[in-house]
C-alpha cells in the first residue's frame, strides 16, 4: 500500500519558529476504531446519535473528577510561551499544533458550556459549540499530540496539554469515535496479556530460542525465565522487547545483568506487557485493568520485587500510578484486599517498583559488574531522553536522577559519550514523534514531521562530534527512530537500547564445567558441515 506522499522537513542548523501554514495538517486523523475493538473496552461501536449531549456531560464529569483539567482550562492567559515548544508544530507549521491552539479546541467548548461568559456572550470569549466540524478537529489534532508534556515545562502556569489531550480522547471514545491503533492494542493487552497478542507458547519458544542464542554467542547459560513461581524479581517489560529490533538486544542485556548478579527473576505470560495504552486514551479504568494483570501475576508468582524494563510510559504508569492502581509501592487503600496483600508481599528494602536502569546502576555503583568498554569503541553514543521518563518520573530518588542514571550507565560501558544540545535534552527533551498512541503507519506524516526537532539536534552531534549511535530506554522511541531515521539520512540501525550497550560490554562469569562443551560441539558441527 503506497503511503500518502508528503515533504520530509529539511534539517536547519538551528530550530526557528516556522512560517505558519494554516490547515496543512487538516485531515481525517488516524483510522477509526470499529465495533469489534470498541465493544470489549465498553465504548459504543460507532458515533452515537446523541453524541453532543453525551460529550458535554462527559466533559462536565471529567472537569470535576480531574480538578487539574479544570484548572488548566481556566488558567491560560494566552501568553504564547508554549507556541514554539511543540515538536509537531515546529515540524508541521500548522498553527493548530501550537499547544495553546490545541488546548483551545477543547477550551472553547468548555467555555461555551461551563462558564458564565461563554454561556451568554460566547463570541466575546471565544466560546464555541461542539459541532461535527469541531469533533472532527478534535479527533484529528488530539491525535497529533504525543502527550509528551514538553509545552508544560515552558508554561508559566504549568498547563499540561497532555492531560487535556487525554480528556479529549476519553470523550471521543465515550461517544464512539475511537482510534483503531490504541483500542485494538488494548483489546489484546486485556485478553492475551500483551499489546502484540503474543500467546504464551509463542512467548515461551521465543525466549527459549533467545537462551540458545545467548549461550552460543557468549558461552554463559543466561536464562530468560517465564512464569517461575518464587523468583525474587518480576520483570515487566514492553512486549516489543520480545518481538522487535533493536529492542530484543536490550532484553538480552537485562538477562545478562540478572545472570551476573545471580538474582532469580522471571517474566509473566499473564502480564507480559509494560506499555499501558490506557493512559494514552485517558481512561483510568482501562489503565487500572491493565495494571491489575501485573498485580495478579506478582501475587501468583509470589515475587518480592517488581521491576520495569525499558519502556517510557510503562515507567510513568508504574512510577506515578501503580501504587494506587494496584498496590505496588505504598498507597494501597485499606479496603483493597489484594493491593494490601501485595504491599505486604513486596520487600520494602528495595524501591517498588524499580526501573531496570536503577538496578543496573546500583550494581555498577557497588562494583558488582565488570565491563570491557572497548567492546563499544566503534560507537560514539548520545542519549535520547524519552518524554514520559524525563517529564513524569524519577530514578534513584535524587533530583534529576532520571537524566543522570541512564547517562551514568552508558558511560560505565562506553568510552565515547556526548550529549545533544542542552535545550533538546533532559526536561526539555524533544519527543521522538511517535509517542502517545501515534506509532501507527496511518500517522506517518505527522510522525516524520514531529521527529524533525530531535533529528536536527542529532544531525548537529553527528556532524560535530561524530555520533553514530542513539541510545534510548523506550520501546516506542526505538521503533519510531528505526522508521524515521532513514528519512533524515541517518542509518536506521544507529538506534539501540541502553541495555544493548551494557550487553556488549559486560563480562560474564562462565561456568568452568561447561567451558569445553561448546568448543566440542562447534568442532562436531564443523565436521558435519
Amino acid at each position, binding site marked *: *500500500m503506497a503511503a500518502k506522499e508528503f515533504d520530509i522537513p529539511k534539517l536547519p542548523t538551528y530550530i526557528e519558529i516556522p512560517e505558519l501554514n494554516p490547515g496543512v495538517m487538516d485531515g481525517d486523523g488516524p*483510522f477509526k476504531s470499529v465495533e469489534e475493538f470498541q465493544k470489549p473496552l465498553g465504548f459504543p461501536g460507532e458515533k452515537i446519535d446523541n453524541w453532543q449531549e453525551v460529550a458535554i456531560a462527559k466533559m462536565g464529569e471529567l472537569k470535576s473528577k480531574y480538578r487539574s483539567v479544570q484548572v488548566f482550562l481556566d488558567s491560560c492567559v494566552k501568553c504564547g510561551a508554549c507556541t514554539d515548544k511543540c515538536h509537531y508544530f515546529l515540524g508541521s507549521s500548522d498553527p493548530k499544533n501550537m499547544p495553546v491552539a490545541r488546548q483551545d479546541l477543547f477550551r472553547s467548548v468548555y467555555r461555551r458550556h461551563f462558564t458564565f461568559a461563554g454561556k451568554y456572550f460566547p463570541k466575546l470569549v471565544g466560546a464555541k459549540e461542539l459541532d461535527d466540524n469541531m469533533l472532527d478537529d478534535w479527533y484529528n489534532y488530539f491525535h497529533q499530540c504525543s502527550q509528551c508534556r514538553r509545552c508544560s515545562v515552558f508554561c508559566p502556569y504549568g498547563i499540561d496539554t497532555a492531560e487535556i489531550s487525554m480528556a479529549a480522547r476519553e470523550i471521543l471514545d465515550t461517544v464512539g469515535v475511537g482510534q483503531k491503533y490504541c483500542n485494538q492494542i488494548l483489546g489484546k493487552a486485556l485478553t492475551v496479556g500483551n499489546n502484540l497478542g503474543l500467546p504464551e507458547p509463542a512467548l515461551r519458544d*521465543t525466549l527459549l530460542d*533467545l537462551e540458545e542464542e545467548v549461550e552460543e554467542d557468549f558461552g554463559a547459560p543466561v536464562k530468560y525465565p517465564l512464569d517461575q513461581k518464587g523468583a525474587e524479581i518480576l520483570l515487566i517489560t*514492553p512486549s*516489543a522487547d520480545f*518481538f522487535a*529490533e533493536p529492542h530484543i538486544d536490550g532484553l538480552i542485556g537485562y538477562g545478562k545483568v540478572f545472570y551476573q548478579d545471580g538474582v532469580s527473576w522471571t517474566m509473566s505470560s499473564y502480564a507480559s506487557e509494560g506499555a499501558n495504552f490506557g493512559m494514552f486514551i485517558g481512561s483510568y479504568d482501562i489503565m487500572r485493568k491493565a495494571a491489575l494483570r501485573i498485580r495478579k501475576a506478582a501475587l501468583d508468582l509470589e515475587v518480592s520485587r517488581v521491576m520495569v524494563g525499558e519502556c517510557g510510559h510503562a515507567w510513568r504508569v508504574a512510577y506515578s500510578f501503580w501504587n494506587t492502581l494496584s498496590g505496588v509501592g505504598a498507597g494501597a487503600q485499606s479496603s483493597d484486599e489484594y493491593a494490601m496483600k501485595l504491599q505486604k508481599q513486596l520487600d520494602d528494602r528495595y524501591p517498588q517498583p524499580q526501573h531496570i536502569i536503577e538496578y543496573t546502576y546500583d550494581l555498577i555503583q557497588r562494583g558488582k559488574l565488570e565491563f570491557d568498554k572497548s567492546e563499544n569503541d566503534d560507537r560514539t553514543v548520545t542519549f535520547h531522553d524519552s518524554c514520559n521518563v524525563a517529564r513524569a518520573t524519577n530514578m534513584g530518588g535524587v533530583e534529576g536522577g532520571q537524566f543522570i542514571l541512564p547517562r551514568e550507565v552508558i558511560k560505565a560501558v562506553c568510552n565515547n559519550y556526548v550529549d545533544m544540545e542542552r535545550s533538546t535534552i533532559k526536561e526539555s527533551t524533544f519527543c521522538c514523534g511517535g509517542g502517545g498512541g501515534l*506509532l501507527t503507519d496511518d500517522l506517518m506524516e505527522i510522525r516524520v514531521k514531529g521527529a524533525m526537532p530531535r533529528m536536527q539536534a542529532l544531525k548537529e552531534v553527528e556532524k560535530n562530534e561524530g555520533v553514530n549511535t542513539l541510545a534510548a530506554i523506550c*520501546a516506542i522511541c526505538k521503533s519510531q527512530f528505526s522508521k524515521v531515521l532513514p528519512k533524515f539520512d541517518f542509518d536506521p540501525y544507529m538506534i539501540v537500547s541502553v541495555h544493548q550497550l551494557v550487553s556488549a560490554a559486560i563480562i560474564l562469569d562462565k561456568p568452568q564445567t561447561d567451558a569445553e562443551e561448546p568448543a566440542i560441539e562447534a568442532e562436531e558441527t564443523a565436521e558435519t558441515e
Partner: protein
Amino acid sequence: MAQICGAEVDEEGFLVDLKDWNKEICIQMAKDDDVELTEEHWGVIDFLRDYFEEYQIAPAVRVLTKAIAKKMGKDKGNSKYLYSLFPYGPGKQGCRFAGLPKPTGCI
C-alpha cells in the same frame, strides 16, 4: 470495503478473513506494491504461514531471521536482507502478503 481478487481487505490492505488467502491474492498484493515474488520471497512467506498456523501470531523478527538463516544461508539471516525482499518491512509487508494479521504494538 476494498477487495483483492474477490477477498475483502481492510484499510491497510490486510485480509479481513484470513481463511480467504491463496497464492493468487498474494501475487496480486505484491504486484500492487511493485514487488516481484522470487523463490526467496516464497521461502519467507511459507515460513510466516507455518509459524502462524502453529502459534497464531507472526514470529518475532529474531525468530524469523534465524529461521531464514537456517533455510537460505547465514548471509540472508538478517533484517537488512529481509528489508531488501520486503521494502515496507518483513513484519508488515511480509505478513500482509502471507495473509497474516498486521502485527501492532510498540513496534
